């Protein structure tokens, strides 16, 4: 006799009963189950957008050396573009915010190592002469360029700076370069400054003329300064002083309404100057290759 399982103890309902039930429950169903055939669907984009098989690569950033060793460069020239510091800035070179190495002085590029500075780093530096070599020997005096020229200060400025002090020997007018060398060679015999300077010499001396009349007053906000109306009239008073001496501070003659000839002259001067400047620039560009 077959074993009776508890499941088979209850008899299954007949097919008629089942169809009746399903008809009754059809209206209560939320959605009809769709029976679709399984079609394989492939999507153009995956979850990782843009990558099919391997990681996407961006456009090349043109990193690397832009000036080779020995090339002549001027300040600001980019020497090496990099991500991070493969190379460090050496003598007369500096690094920008994205680790780009620029030249800091006009000269010739050198790629080198300097174990005294750092045991592992590589440097890019500038030398001033093609025969010079980096790194410099330890404790050597640094190589530096002045990169400046000496000019005589304009007369008005130097007048303003001259003090009311008796200068013992009259200083002869000499060209700037000779004057400097002359002073430095004979410095042993220089007069020593007086042990006690008089108060006048010690205080700041203003230049003669309009500045004498400008006096500092306590303005609102606890600042000591000349008042605005004095500042505003400074130019006018300067012109008045100059005219008293027979000179003028004006670059152009005072405008006279109706004098078209003077106006034309002034604009003609300006136009000529601009044309000249443009012509100079054009000539330079044409000459370069």
């Amino acid at each position: 006799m077959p074993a009776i399982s508890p499941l088979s103890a209850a008899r299954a309902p007949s097919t008629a009963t089942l169809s009746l039930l399903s008809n009754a429950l059809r209206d209560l169903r939320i959605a009809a189950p769709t029976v679709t055939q399984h079609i394989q669907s492939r999507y153009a984009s995956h979850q990782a957008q843009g990558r099919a098989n391997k990681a996407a690569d961006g456009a090349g950033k043109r990193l690397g050396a832009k000036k080779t060793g020995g090339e002549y460069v001027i300040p600001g020239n980019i020497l090496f573009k990099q991500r991070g510091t493969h190379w460090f800035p050496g003598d007369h070179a500096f690094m920008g915010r994205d680790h780009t190495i620029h030249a800091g002085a006009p000269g010739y590029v050198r790629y080198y190592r300097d174990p005294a500075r750092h045991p592992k780093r590589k440097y890019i530096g500038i030398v001033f002469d093609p025969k010079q070599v980096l790194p410099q020997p330890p404790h050597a005096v640094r190589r530096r360029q002045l990169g400046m020229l000496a000019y005589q200060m304009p007369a008005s400025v130097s007048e303003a700076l001259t003090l009311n002090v008796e200068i013992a020997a009259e200083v002869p007018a000499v060209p700037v370069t000779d004057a400097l060398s002359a002073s430095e060679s004979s410095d042993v015999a220089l007069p020593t400054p007086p042990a006690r300077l008089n108060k006048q010499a010690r205080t700041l001396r203003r230049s003669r003329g309009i500045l004498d009349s400008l006096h500092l007053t306590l303005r609102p906000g606890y600042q000591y300064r000349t008042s605005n109306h004095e500042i505003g009239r400074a130019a006018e008073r300067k012109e008045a002083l100059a005219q008293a001496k027979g000179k003028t501070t004006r670059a152009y003659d005072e405008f006279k309404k109706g004098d078209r000839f003077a106006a034309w002259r002034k604009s003609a001067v300006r136009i000529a100057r601009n044309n000249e400047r443009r012509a100079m620039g054009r000539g330079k560009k044409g000459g370069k290759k």
Partner: protein
Amino acid sequence: MALDRSAGRLARCIRCTRHERTLPIRTFTTTAPSRLETQETQASSEPPPPPAGATTDAPKPRLRDPNTVSTRAAEQQLIQHQRITPVGSRRRRAAIASTSNIPFSELPYQCFQEARAVLQADRKQKLEHIRVQRERIERFKAKDVAPQDEAHKEKKVADMRRRLEEQKILADINDPVVKRKFEDGEGDLNKPIYRLLADRQWRSYRRTLLLQRITQMNVVPDVLPAIDPVVSTALSFAGKRVQHGDFVDSRMSELAPSLQIQPYDKGKRLYTVVVVNPDVPNVQKDAFDYRCHFLASNIEISPTDTRVRLGLLGEEGQVILPWLPAYGQKGAPYQRMSMFVLEQAKSEGGGEFQTIDVAAVKAGGKYTQRHGFNLRSFVDKHLLKPVGVDLFRTKWDEGTAGVMQRAGIVGWDVEFKRKRVEPLPYKRMDSVRYR
């Protein structure tokens, strides 16, 4: 002052006398003016004493000081009647009651006194070692040695002396009174322990700062190849201190400064002070030159006598080049005025410091030229040892023209402007590339 605005909120709360307090409050201060104040206010808030002549039932309660009650009964009275707790330990209060000025070494703390006893025993031992070492040195010096062993004997004596100095330090290093005296600035720098403490203090911060400034400003290697500062320097112009590397107004530096040189080993020695400017612009060479602003030798300095007024040194025996005011011409970069302290050589055997013949140097002519002064050569020639360095900077300011004129220096009306660098030739591409 009842309620001080400067006191914190908690302090004010504790000191507040408006509210009735059931429990006495113990604060952290050892001095308790507020307690006495509260005492006073409470005393004043107490009912006025009965008029004279009237009989009183209870005797007037005696006011006790919380700092000096030492008996149990007195403490109880203080707490119960005055509502204040005593301050500190009973031993302390007893000591203060006897006298207010207890010397540091007699402070009545047991652990402290035990420790003091240990340190005193150790010091006694060290003093004994010092005595023994001194005797040893004397005995060894008295020994006769063969001429070929003289150098070895001298070296050994020097080593023994060094050991003796170490022992002197060890005897005093644990003394709290020494430490306190040094921190209060009362240390006598003739004694090795105070010199050691001062040296240690200098090296802990100010020397590292000095070295940082010197290396960042490239004084070394521009002027001298290397330096190991052993003496500390303090520079001041017209009484105003100048920190290492500070910018000094040209009018301030017109007159010679005052320099304090502090050595940390004993004895007098002779120094040479030199001020060199390595940033003098030279337009022809497109480079920089050196200029010596001051040079003086045979300056005697000891650990207690440290001040040198450079303007007051003797012209005959000391000053080779007098003070030239520091100046920076307009437009030129700032000028570094580096000051070096160079120790003069010791003569062999005698231990005396050699003087430099100033007259001979002046007559020689090589080192009397300010412009192009080579300090490396001067140091090598006279066997000097760089032991100290200082730095100040100068640039063009309102007073520079005046300073240069008064000193008779040519070039006060010279302005430096940057040279135009010719741009590199570039081939101009067609306009499409520049869109």
